[in-house]
């Protein structure tokens, strides 16, 4: 029996603005075990980011219960590295905000930068790095506060296709190696299948859990790029594609 890291129960979210009320999430319950990689897919604007915001504590749900066992780390679509800070200082922004012991934090960040190939770029400014390297730096910035659960919101969609495939592989390997749990929001079905143990399909807004797929490929525990070659990959892809109900009218 694994430890439950994250649990959502009957989450409901209504946004109030001057223009009116938006019901973003109607009734979502889900739980994620330690070490599990769970993807959330769903139509655009259905409330995926909102779920992550609720999980991370950025937003408070209007109803329901959030139980989180451990620290959260959030990775956004763009790297949002601060142009005025060097890569090293960018990665240290989390510990800095949280008032951690900066000497220890610095050491562990430098260690991470070394491990993941950014050693020679620590003292560079972000605009001197390629898109992939920047995203890796953003991941290290997230890891610097030593989170147990990583929330990735379209974390790769700003990258070009090739970089994206490699980054997915890299990030997956890093997160597995560091024993993290991950909740991944993506609109790329193939990416979701290749990275996750489970895929949760959301309905149109207001979001509800439409269905859940446990991904069982022929070879368990392979990195994403390998998984794409798996014979069952196609089968999952078609099923989820149908589920998402994407109509192409022409």
């Amino acid at each position, binding site marked *: 029996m694994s430890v439950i890291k994250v649990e959502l129960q009957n989450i409901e979210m209504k946004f109030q603005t001057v223009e009116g009320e938006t019901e973003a999430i109607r009734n979502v319950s889900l739980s994620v075990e330690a070490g599990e990689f769970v993807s959330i897919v769903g139509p655009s604007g259905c409330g995926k980011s909102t779920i992550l915001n609720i999980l*991370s504590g*950025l937003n408070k749900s209007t109803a329901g219960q959030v139980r989180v066992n451990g620290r*959260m*780390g*959030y990775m*956004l679509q*763009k790297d*949002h590295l*601060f*142009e*005025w*800070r060097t890569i090293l200082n960018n990665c240290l*922004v*989390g510990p*800095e*905000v*949280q008032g951690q012991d900066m000497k220890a934090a610095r050491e562990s960040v430098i260690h991470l930068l070394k491990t993941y190939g950014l050693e020679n770029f620590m003292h560079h*400014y972000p*605009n001197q790095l390629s898109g992939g390297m920047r995203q890796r730096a953003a991941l290290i910035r997230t890891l610097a*506060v030593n989170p147990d659960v990583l929330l990735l919101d379209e974390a790769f969609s700003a990258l070009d296709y090739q970089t994206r495939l490699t980054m997915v592989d890299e990030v997956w390997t890093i997160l597995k190696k560091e024993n993290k749990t991950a909740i991944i929001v993506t609109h790329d079905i193939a990416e979701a299948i290749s990275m996750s143990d489970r895929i949760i399909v959301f309905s149109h807004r207001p979001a509800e859990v439409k269905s859940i797929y446990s991904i069982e490929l022929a070879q368990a525990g392979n990195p994403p790029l390998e998984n794409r070659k798996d014979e069952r990959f196609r089968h999952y892809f078609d099923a989820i594609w149908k589920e998402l109900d994407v109509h192409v009218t022409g």
Partner: protein
Amino acid sequence: MSQVNISPERRDYLRRTHRKRMLVLITQLFILMAFFAVWELAARMQWIDPFITSQPSGVLKTLKSLHAGGSLYLHVWTTIWETFVGFTAGTAGGLLIAVLLWWSNFLSRVSEPYLVVLNALPKVALGPILIVWMGNGMGAIIAMALLISIIVTIISMLNGFLTVDQDKIKLLKTFGASRYQILCKVILPASLPNIISALKVNVGLSWVGVIMGEFLVSKAGLGYLIIYGSQVFKLDIVMASVIILAVAAAAMYLGVSYLEKKMLKWQQ
């Protein structure tokens, strides 16, 4: 970085760009000299009336006698000091108020119409009021310079603060940042280019404010010299003051540009 092995193409390129730069510089110097030479010549040949246009040799003579009498420095320093104080107070005060308005959404919404009106109002119109309130001395002049720059600073700074990428703020919030930390770690650094450009604008505005103020009241300063010179029809004094003013204003602007280069290293 000194490169030991420069390819011939590179050397050619460097030589070409150097030559172009020199050409621009020489032309600039030439225009300046030609301007003064033609001015002097025209005055001597009586093509223009030096009584109302002055002439470079007369300006030089005036500068010398002002220098000998020592009053030149009194006037120059008075004006520079007033400008510096007005500029610093206007910029710092504007920045501070902008931070305050960023902090409190309520305050910023309340103050909005007032700022709009104050911004539209030509501040010079307030000059006589300032003189009545503060007396005809340095205080009124500095207040003039401050007033002319502070409102623009508030408005442009606040706009800058509010357009900082929301996702950058969100990122800091995911680490649990407080509002104060968001201010110090994102809003202010991200607004640095904005702050510098406000500095540049304010340098110019402060000169305007100070000279306007000195026109209205004052017993010393370059603005005073200009008014005095024109009243007694000594155009040499007027022209000399204008030239000093141009040099001083340019020097202050260059100072800010230098600061910009130093502070925005990461932008290159």
